[in-house]
């Protein structure tokens, strides 16, 4: 990936905000709404109210269904709303307005209208957030046609995908895996975009294709580095966008490696891991040297106690074991 200088190391959350600020600066119709977006517990919108005022950065009541739906009408008449849902699980409260209204109106109308909306949120496990604050909703949302879904894993992608998401003429769900917020990485100062729908090969390898999503990408890279020492060359792919999914990049990699492991930071059943494995098997079965492996959460809610939470979520050992299994089994 080519970076234009000057770049400096900043936090993921700061990078999201830089992408958002750039979008707000270039287009007055971009507005940010959500609960307490002025102070912003997670931080992506913190301080923007000072620059852009309380009409473009607006706190909402706790009425998710209504403000998620309001963005459909607002975008249809010319606004570009960016909504902070705060936590991934809160999408459930607004599911009809998201899945039946925002996602479907353009299609149902026969293409009459563009609905440029960004629904972003911090999401996923954060350490004993318990069952109602730890889920990643992307498996559910991937089944809803009409929503683009991005889930960056680096500050660089976080900034570039935010600007792309706000410029996109469609509803885009932008998922910030909770634990990534405080990670740092090289980010150019200037505004730039990372294209929606294009996966990124984060590490080249020859033996196994390891697809990792969100917070699992940096962990996959560490594991790949370790495995290198054991003589296993792992290629790590970050889809970055889950809808539309860049299947070609993944299939091309599997064609070279013949082995596939997909790690999803979500519950196993009907996860992105299931989808990617099924799709690859359909189109690249003949090149597979070993059964593709899924690594995802146990099919349980995320429990509170650290020992229990650890048991349900994906561990580095799970990932490593799955990679090794494709080499040996």
């Amino acid at each position: 990936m080519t970076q234009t200088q000057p770049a400096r190391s900043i936090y993921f959350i700061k990078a999201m905000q830089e992408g958002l600020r750039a979008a707000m600066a270039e287009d007055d119709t971009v507005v940010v709404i959500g609960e307490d977006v002025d102070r912003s517990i997670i931080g992506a919108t913190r301080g923007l109210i000072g620059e852009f005022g309380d009409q473009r950065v607006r706190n909402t009541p706790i009425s998710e269904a209504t403000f998620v739906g309001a963005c459909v009408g607002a975008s249809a008449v010319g606004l570009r709303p960016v909504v902070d849902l705060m936590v991934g699980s809160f999408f459930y409260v607004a599911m009809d307005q998201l899945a039946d209204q925002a996602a479907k109106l353009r299609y149902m109308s026969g293409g009459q209208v563009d609905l440029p909306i960004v629904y972003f949120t911090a999401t996923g496990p954060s350490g004993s957030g318990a069952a109602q604050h730890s889920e990643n909703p992307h498996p559910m949302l991937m089944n809803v046609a009409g929503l683009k879904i991005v889930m960056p894993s680096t500050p660089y992608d976080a900034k570039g995908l935010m600007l792309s998401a706000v410029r996109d003429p469609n509803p885009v769900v932008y998922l910030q895996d909770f634990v990534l917020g405080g990670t740092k990485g090289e980010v150019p100062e200037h505004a730039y975009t990372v294209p929606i729908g294009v996966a990124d090969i984060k590490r080249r390898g020859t033996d196994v294709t390891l697809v990792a999503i969100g917070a699992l990408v940096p962990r996959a890279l560490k594991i790949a580095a370790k495995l290198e020492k054991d003589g296993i060359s792992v290629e790590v792919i970050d889809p970055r966008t889950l809808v539309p999914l860049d299947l070609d990049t993944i299939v091309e990699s599997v064609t070279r490696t013949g082995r596939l492991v997909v790690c999803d930071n979500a519950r196993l059943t009907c996860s992105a891991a299931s989808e990617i494995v099924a799709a690859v098997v359909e189109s690249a079965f003949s090149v597979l040297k070993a059964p593709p492996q899924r690594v995802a959460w146990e099919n349980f809610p995320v429990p509170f106690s650290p020992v229990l939470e650890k048991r349900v979520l994906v561990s580095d050992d799970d990932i490593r074991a799955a990679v090794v299994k494709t080499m040996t089994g």
Partner: protein
Amino acid sequence: MTTPPRADLPAQEQADLLRQMIRIRRFEEKVAQLFKRGQLPGFVHLYLGEEAVAVGVCSALRPDDRITSTHRGHGHLLAKGATVDRMMAELFGRVDGYCRGKGGSMHIVSFALGIMGTNGIVGGGIPIGTGSAWGDQHLGRDTVTVVFFGDGAANQGVFFESMNLAAIWKLPVIFVCENNGYTEWTATEKLTAGKIADRGQPFGIPGVQVDGNNVGDVRRAVERAIERARGGDGPSLIEAKTYRWHGHNEGEEAFAGAYRPEEEQQHWRQREPIAAYARELIASGVLDQAGWDAIDSEETRAIDDAVAFGKASPFPDAEEALLHLFADSTVGHPTVRRTPVRDTPDGDQR
């Protein structure tokens, strides 16, 4: 009727209210007929008997004002300027329909006409209309949005959430509840506590109950609400009491049984909105019998032409099913048969 017609309006406009109500009446009668004959796909929910609400409301709006509608939306759309031919084509699932056949009865929209949504989800349009009002306000326009919904939708949480948001942001939105006495096959009062018109009070939103079968009364109430909204004073709530003549959906006889007392139905048939208004126009000299007949036969003919138009319009090409999901071409968007997904200019009517 209790109130005089709108003598304050130009005669032409007074007559036009009649024409629009007749247009809706004849359109819906035709749809009922087509449905019985099995010529229409999907579900239809007819507006027969409620014409004065849509016409009273939409006739007070400017072309750039907006509405969101419901599953029982044909009347709203026609009153907001939709043409009978493209409406009919959509009901037939043809390419000349407003949504190129993708929407059907419950999803006809025309953003060009300010029709922001018709909804298959009860209450689904309430946040959307609240949002278009927010967008217009933010962009400095003085347009207003009318949100149509039924008595049943008045029990959906989004109604209250949207009233609260509209109240604190002083949004130019008018909540128009069509209380036709029934939520599907259950009497409204069995499901709905208190008076719907009062539901805005806790939010400081003025609410009135009007005779939904009196086009003049409806129009007057909406004019007050529009003035308030354009003046920046925020939302209003109007409960229009009316009655639907047909079933909840066409074909309900198959299972619904007799859930509405004969007398009740008679009572409302007598309070029929169109003839009464026409007689008033004649009484006040705006129109004579011949004029009334002329309007009726013109509109009736227009409906027949619309049916011909609809039937003559081709079905969309099957591959159009894979268009219009996203505004741009969706790189790598997987489809089962890997058919390339792209958008056609003609798909975009904007």
